[in-house]
């Protein structure tokens, strides 16, 4: 009897602590949205309050009109979606090859996949800048100052982890299933897309989220590659436009940050169950 009460009390305390921690963790995001909705005078008040009585969309209007944020939002979406689709397709095929086939260089390739993840991509900005400069002469859309250059680098950087993670999911699908499908007369191609692909969906979702975030959040490559084509900038860079020494427009900065964070947040919440399942799957394998 006493034990049950004690357990309830300690669980109650644990839940209280959990909620307080959740509030602290979420606070910066609350502050971002709050600041974006505050009237300009309240934002730069020397006495900031954690609420506002006069919410307004002025800051959002300023962010969207003054610096054509809409255009940059669209650019960011184009890059992220292209990276997700291409990386899904390519990493699924590669993960299948690395788990379902035995060949001599398999282990070497797996080790290489791990090794390339260690390469600090920031260091590669230097050679990649020159690579993109040459690409521009051959295929301008994929070269410097174009969104294609961003798609290419983010694809390359998200592939190793995506393949590495998908391996576990492909391996978890019983080989007997493939044998059964073959006996039923399904071609390799049909097995791949109609049986295997749906079965590894949780893993695909998990890796897509990571590829999307990779591309969406990128600041460095957008800064390095999109040097003189303002119309091809992406959100993270556009946000910096509002940052000026000693006179930051914090309202607009927070409105822009909100616009940039919301898509990722929605995406995350939609897939969070599968993400957790995906990570758990990667754990079990």
């Amino acid at each position, binding site marked *: 009897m006493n034990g049950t009460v004690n357990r309830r009390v300690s669980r109650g305390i644990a*839940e209280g602590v959990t909620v307080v921690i959740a509030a602290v963790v979420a606070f*910066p995001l609350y502050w*971002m949205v709050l600041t974006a909705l505050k009237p300009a005078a309240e934002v730069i008040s020397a006495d900031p309050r954690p609420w506002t009585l006069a919410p307004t969309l002025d800051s959002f209007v300023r962010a969207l009109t003054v610096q054509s944020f809409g255009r940059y939002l669209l650019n960011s979406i184009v890059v992220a979606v292209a990276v997700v689709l291409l990386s899904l397709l390519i990493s699924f095929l590669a993960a299948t090859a690395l788990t379902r086939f035995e060949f001599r260089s398999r282990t070497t390739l797996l080790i290489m996949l791990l090794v390339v993840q260690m390469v600090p991509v920031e260091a590669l*900005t230097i050679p990649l800048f020159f690579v993109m400069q040459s690409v521009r002469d051959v295929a301008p859309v994929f070269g410097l100052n174009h969104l294609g250059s961003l798609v290419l680098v983010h694809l390359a950087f998200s*592939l190793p982890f995506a393949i590495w993670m998908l391996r576990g999911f492909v391996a978890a699908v019983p080989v007997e299933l493939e044998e059964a499908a073959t006996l039923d007369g399904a071609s390799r191609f049909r097995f791949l897309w109609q049986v295997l692909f749906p079965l590894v969906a949780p893993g695909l979702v998990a890796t897509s989220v990571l590829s999307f975030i990779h591309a969406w*959040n990128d600041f460095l490559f957008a800064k390095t590659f999109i040097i003189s084509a303002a119309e091809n900038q992406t959100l993270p860079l556009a946000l910096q436009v509002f940052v000026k020494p000693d006179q930051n427009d914090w309202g607009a900065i927070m409105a822009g*940050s909100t616009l940039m964070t919301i898509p990722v947040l929605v995406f995350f919440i939609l897939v969070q169950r599968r993400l957790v399942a995906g990570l758990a799957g990667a754990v079990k394998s």
Partner: protein
Amino acid sequence: MSMRRGDGRIAFAYLAPALLVLVGLMGYPIYQLVLISLFDYGQEQVSGGAPLTFLGLGNYTTLLADARFWAVLGQTVAFAAVCVVGTLLVGTALAVLASRVRTWARMTLFLAALGAWATPAVAGSTIWLFLFDANFGFVNEVLGTTGFSWTYDKWVAFGLVAAQVIWCSFPFVMVTLYAGIKAIPGEVLEAAALDGASTAKTATSVMLPLLRPLLIVVTIQSIIWDFKVFTQIYIMTSGGGIAGRNLVLNVYAYQQAFAASEYGLGASIGVVTTVLLLVVTAAYLRALRRSGEAL
């Protein structure tokens, strides 16, 4: 799996797109990075105004003799260590906490953590800067320290950036370890309880060994991420702090290359960073092998 005729060719066909992308956009640039690091490669060489001079290891000897480089290296390691330890402590503690509360409390925590995780580094850094702003920041208002700059003093600035990095990276550790804790069969824990093991004893001698492989993965992943922090430092300390005192290797390399047009020197810093991380990878592979996991 049984080999079928033509397996090798099919495997290669499946791998071809990935290989093409990885060789072209990672392999070749890595080769180029090393190559550039061996030359005196500045603005004049890029524009063709001056001939390329092969320096051999010249850029590296310049680096090794440079007190600045050693200072940056030291603070990079210290900064990454603080971030890794902080991320792991917070993530592990919260994973355990999450496994002991009812669903509603867990979902609240996970939702908040997902928010922090999802926030783009640029947005996150900017939000934190504003929260800690000297004049309009909420933190100074609460602490009654209006006017105090959190980005002026070198170590305070590093601390602030580290806190931001921990804020956005602990959720990965928490969610992964929580999944790991949930994957431990209930019978195992019940058996331990029946044997009279205390909570602490269960945690250290039953759960910890089972979670060890996962802990290794999240530790190494955190080391790799935190050693390479770029955006947070760049934005929160305006490109590396006053007179570059908040530089970490990555930002230092970038500044040498694109701000000072010393592409060769920047590339050599990149090579050094890469080699340091490769050492960590080797340790990772060894740890994996020792814990009996096959590749």
